Every structure is written in C-alpha cells, then in structure tokens.
C-alpha cells in the first residue's frame, strides 16, 4: 500500500521535474530559437560532448562504427561511450543518474529496466519533453508496438528501441535430416516438438553412444532462465502477473509450463543442468544439438561467422518458438536509449538517439552492424546481407507473438527483483531440489511479499 503511494509520488515528482525543464528551456530560448538550437547541437568552434553508458558487449562497436556515421550528420556532437559489463550495468546506471550531477547524458537500458530508472525521476519523457526537438518526419507509429513498449512506463515514453532482440528457436537442419524428421515450421506445436525430441538424441558418428541431442537452452540459475518457462506459459495463454500485479502463475498452467522446461533436460546434452547463455551457444555452434531457444542476436555468430561457428547459414533455421494452446512463443529483449533529465546536453543526446532509431539510422545499423531493427518499414526492406532475410521474417513473427501473448518480463520498478526470485525458484526445480509446484508456490509467495 504505502509502496504504491510512494511510487505514485515519485512519478508525479518526475512529471513535475520534466515539466519544469521544458518551461525553463522555453524561457531561456525565447525568441532566439534558431540560434539556440544550433548551439545546443554544437558548432565547429564549440562542439558539445555527449556521454553514454552502455553494455560493454556493444559499446566498442558503437564507438568505432556508429559514432563516425552519426558524425556525418552531426559533426559537432562528440560522443563518448563507456562500456560496463551487463550484470552491473543497471546498478551502475542507477548509481550515476541519482547523483547531483550525473556523468551520463544517455543511458542504454535493457528491456525490464526502464520502470526502475524512470521511477528515480531521472529520465526525460521523449514524446513530451523532447517533442520540440523531434524531427517532423520521425515516425513513432512505424515502430512495432512490442519493442516501442519496452521504453514506455505509465504513459510516458522514456526510451526508444535501439537494439531489438527476441527469444527465438534456432534449428540445426542437418540434425533434423539425419534423424529423418521434417524441418520444423513456425506452426510446430509443443506436442509435436516433444514427440520428435527423443529421435533427435542420436549417435551421429557411430561411436556407440549419443553424440547429438535435441535441445540446449537456459537451465542454470540465471535471471534469463525463467524467460523460457514464461514463454511456454504465455504461449499456453498463461500470464506471469495479473492486472493488479499479483502472481498469476501459481496454477496448473504454470506448473505444466515449468515441468515442460524441466522435461527438456531429458533431451539435452549431459551437464546441461549447468548450462546458460554461453554453454548452449557452444553446444549449438558445435552442431551437437538440433534446437536451441536463444536470443536472435546470436544468429550471426551462430550461422554466419566462420571464426565462431562450425555451421553455415544454409544449415541454420530461425523461427518463433513452438506453438502452445494460444499461439507461438517469443520473448522480448529490447535495448532502449534514454536521456537523463539532469543532462546539460539533452538536445544533442536526443539528436543521437533520434537518428539511430530513425528509419535512416535503423537501416544503416541493420546493414552495417547486423543489429535487429524495430520498425515495420525496416523489416519490410530487403537487407543487404542475404542471411538477414529469414531473420527478418522470424523477427516480424516474433514481434507479433510477443505482442499478442504479452511475452516480456514484468514492467515495474521491481522487475529485476521479481526476475531474480523466479530465477532462484525455477532453478531449484530444474536442479531437482524441489518439485515444480513447490517452486512456483514459493515464488508466488516471495513475489507477493516483494510487491506488497
């Protein structure tokens, strides 16, 4: 109860601060709007500096490739990107934006983080506070609903999608052929999947014991492991939380979905119980598993780049996850860019985010860096690299599935904490320490207490 009121209070505070910023900006600019505008975007004599905190995994790529491209349009905005390892990025961003004079003008936030960052009152509402600086042809409605929603919280748009990602199913077509099974299609159901799985555990090199398995994915205790279970749950019409943010998974549907996640282990390689992101990637890239539920962004390193994978684009299929009682599965993972409202370079910061998420910027980024787009118009273009074509098809299917089944992590300031609880309890079930129903019961109790 009290917590809710606190939350409301801080939103109101955030809105008030945001409004005040706009008023102040208007008051300062007054009549000399055009001149002010140029200075805010930097001049040859006085360039402006914009600093960004981002995931270490792509900070360097952006700094060396994206920034020079951006500087072709805005030569006087100097951009510095600091990379932080993923696991510490949220905490570091929070520690920074809550300070009296934050270092960063731009925060790059993962899918569930926007509410928590916005709650501190540190982010700019881009549709409102930055409206005056937004280009007329910046088409908000062109974004797919699912990725745009990742930057939204309580009616305000704090972030724009910069790197989109989805949990999808990767298929090793060679292993399906060896097992004498038809290549999966996006219509494949969970029942069919489980019926075929035993045949995909096969001895491919006549060594007398299995050398290829059906599946590898997240099984170890990890914040992202529950996304597998949750996607199964969502595709069967279940939900994580109800409209009042109370746990809605502690029922037959939830237990069935978790049991299915656990049953996947039967067809997974030995040791898969401690596998997560890296291990399942290795197994799939070595051609040891026929399917993998994994983030689409790894496609390039899994099917295309000969330095990292033994597979080729012809061997690797990508599609939505199997179909449940209410539709196919996917799970959203969007990196959004947000502007901090204590930043002195808000206009320049927004200029960067705006360009990168514009039609032009997205097409450039998709073709040059292989980063997945969020705009319908970009997904409808023909990508320069042939390998991206099937990926675009799968992405569009995935966005639709994620939108229909609300397949994303909880959107609230405590979403990360909720995710940790789910990770804890499902991991205990997966490792056989407690039965599935007990795990979900524990998780429900703990989440209810957390959100009280």
């Amino acid at each position: 109860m009290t917590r809710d009121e606190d939350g409301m209070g801080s939103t109101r505070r955030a809105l008030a601060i945001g409004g005040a910023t706009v008023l102040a900006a208007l008051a300062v600019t007054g009549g000399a709007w055009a001149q002010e505008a140029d200075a805010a975007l930097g001049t040859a004599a006085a360039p402006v500096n914009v600093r960004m905190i981002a995931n270490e995994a792509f900070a360097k790529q952006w700094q060396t490739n994206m920034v020079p491209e951006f500087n072709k349009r805005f030569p006087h905005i100097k951009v510095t990107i600091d990379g932080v390892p993923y696991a510490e990025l949220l905490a570091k961003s929070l520690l920074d934006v809550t300070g009296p004079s934050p270092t960063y003008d731009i925060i790059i936030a993962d899918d569930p983080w926007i509410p928590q960052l916005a709650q501190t009152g540190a982010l700019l509402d881009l549709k409102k506070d930055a409206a005056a600086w937004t280009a007329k042809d910046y088409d908000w409605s062109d974004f797919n609903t699912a990725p745009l929603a990742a930057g939204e919280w309580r009616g305000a748009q704090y972030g724009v999608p910069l790197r989109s990602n989805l949990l999808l199913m990767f298929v090793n077509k060679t292993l399906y052929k060896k097992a004498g099974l038809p290549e999966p299609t996006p219509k494949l159901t969970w029942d069919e999947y489980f019926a075929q799985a035993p045949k995909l555990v096969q001895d491919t090199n006549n060594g007398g014991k299995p050398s290829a398995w059906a599946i590898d994915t997240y099984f170890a205790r990890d914040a992202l492991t529950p996304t597998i279970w949750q996607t199964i749950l969502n595709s069967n019409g279940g939900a994580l939380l109800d409209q009042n943010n109370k746990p809605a998974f502690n029922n037959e549907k939830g237990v069935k979905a978790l049991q299915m996640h656990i049953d996947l282990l039967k067809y997974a390689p030995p040791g898969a119980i401690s596998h997560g992101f890296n291990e399942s990637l290795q197994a799939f890239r070595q051609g040891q598993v026929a399917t993998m539920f994994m983030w689409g962004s790894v496609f390039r390193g899994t099917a295309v780049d000969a330095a990292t994978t033994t597979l080729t684009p012809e061997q690797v299929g990508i599609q939505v996850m199997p179909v449940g009682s209410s539709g196919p599965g996917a799970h959203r993972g969007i990196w959004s860019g947000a502007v901090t409202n204590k930043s002195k370079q808000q206009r320049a910061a927004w200029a960067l985010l705006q360009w990168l998420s514009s039609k032009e910027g997205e097409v450039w980024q998709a073709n040059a860096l292989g980063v997945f787009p969020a705009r319908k118009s970009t997904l409808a273009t023909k990508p320069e690299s042939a390998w991206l074509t099937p990926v675009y098809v799968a992405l569009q299917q995935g966005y639709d599935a994620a939108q229909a089944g609300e397949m994303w992590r909880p959107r609230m300031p405590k979403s990360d904490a909720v995710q940790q609880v789910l990770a804890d309890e499902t991991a205990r079930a997966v490792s056989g320490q407690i039965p599935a129903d007990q795990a979900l019961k524990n998780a429900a109790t703990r989440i209810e207490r957390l959100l009280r």
Partner: protein
Amino acid sequence: MTRTRAMSTDEAARPKTSRMWLGIKDFLSRWTFMTPAALLLLATLAYPILYTIQISFSELDLGSFTPSGFVGWDNYLTVLEDDRFWNALRVTGIYLVLALPLQMALGFGIAYLINAEWRWRGVVRALFIIPMVVAPVVAGGVWRMLLDPLWGVVNYLLGLIGAGPVDWLGDPVLAMVTLVLVDTWRWTPFVTLIATAALLALPQDVFEAAEIDGANWWIKFKSIAIPLLMPVIAATFIVRWLGAVKMFDIALATTNGGPGHATSVINLFIYEEAFRSLKFAESSAMAVIVLILTMALTAIFLRGAKKLEDMY
C-alpha cells in the same frame, strides 16, 4: 629496557620541559608506526561501515541512494526469515571447513617440496605463483572447460579409463567439491609463497645441530620446524580465513552459486542481492550480520593463534 635506564641517568641534569619534550617525542616516535595505517583506514573503512550499518536500519530511497526512514529491525527480520540466507551461511561453512585445512596443508607441504635445493628451484617457485594471477573469471571459465562433461579434458581422460562422464557442475555435492578444488588451485600458491619465505628464514644451524645430535626427521619436524613456523602458520591461517570468508568471484565464475543454491556462498549471495536485485537495505543487514559473525570467529582464531604462539 636498557634505553630507559640510560635515559633516567640523564634525567636529573635536564630541566623539566625537556623531559616532557622527550616524553612527547618518544610517544610520537612510537605512534609514528601505527598512524599512517590507522589514518588511511579510518578514512576509507570507517565511513563505509557506518553507512552500511545506517542503511541496514533504514529503507533505501533508490531515487537518491540515501537511507530514508528508520525501520528498526525490519531488514534484519526479513533476512533472518529468508531460508536462502541460512542456506548461504551453511554453504559457506562447508566450503570453509573443506577448503582452509586443505589449502594450509597443501601449501606448506608443497613449499617444503619445492624448496629442495636444485638448479631450477627459483623457476619452479616463480611458476608456482601463476595460478594466483589468473583472474577468477578466467580461472572459473578454464576450469569449466576442463571439467565439462561434453568438452572437458578431465572427463575425456576419465573416459579413457572407463569412468565417467562425471557431471562436476551439475550435481550439488560435486559442484561444492569443484568449487573447493578451483579455490584450492588458486589459493594454495599463496600459502606456498608465504611458507617459502618462512622456510627460507628458518635458521639452518639449529637443524644441523639437531642432526649431529642424531635427531630423526620426525623429531626435527615436530620439535624444531613446527614451533619455529607456528607464528607464520597461525598468521597465514588467519589471512587465508579472512580471504576465504569473503570469497565470491571464484564461485561467481565457476558455478554461479548453482546448481540451484548448492554453492551460493554468503558473499556471492549478498553481492547478488545488493547489486543485481538492488535490495541494498536487506543486503546491508546481511552484511552487518556477516561482519559480526566474522569478527567473532576471527577474534576466537586470534586468541587461538596467540595461545599457539605462547605455547611454542
């Protein structure tokens, strides 16, 4: 002693102010030794600890990262009701009981072995430091590679003699064994390094004298080496204990606390609660509890160490 007597003979001849001045000077010269460390630590250690204690009794306002609102023992009660906290303490206890004696015994044993005098002694000694320098993240990863049921060399070799594959990381009991193994691999060289320095400082003439008296190796070991080494053994144990009790990076990289919570040592748990779940208030309460527990145990060990020193 001698010095004070020397001073007191002069005393009568000197005026009182000078005596006081000498007293102050002596006082200062004694404190010169303690002051730098005390001041440095007061600045860097005292505030954070007090801050942590303050947060542990408050609710943390994530909007400003300042403690807001006194909540009494609420955070502590939440922590004490959490069975994961108790599990983490239990896991840490098991880890300490297994890892510390193993590392001490191996460390001193290996120090004895590699200090045998020969041409390459220096090189062997230097090479032995390497495991300590391998970053925990890399160490954890390399060990995971070695132990993996699918790709690992260890299971491959076991397979050659018809055993395995052993799921070193998937089984809760074996995962703890693996954690102790990796930790021992990284930290035994540390014990060896200190033990080497201590062995080098042992007075050889005592041993030679004992040999001439016809003492066998057991008597030399028991009656000369152990008593002489006891202060160093005790000190190393305490240093190692203080390091081991804070261990989290090796667990993070090797097992990440898994499977389930089987290897979730207390500092990994607190780290995750604080920096990943952002529950700073509760994790501060945990930190304070752990601090008190560790202080109490360390005090007991210190006492034991002193007893041992006095005994020999």
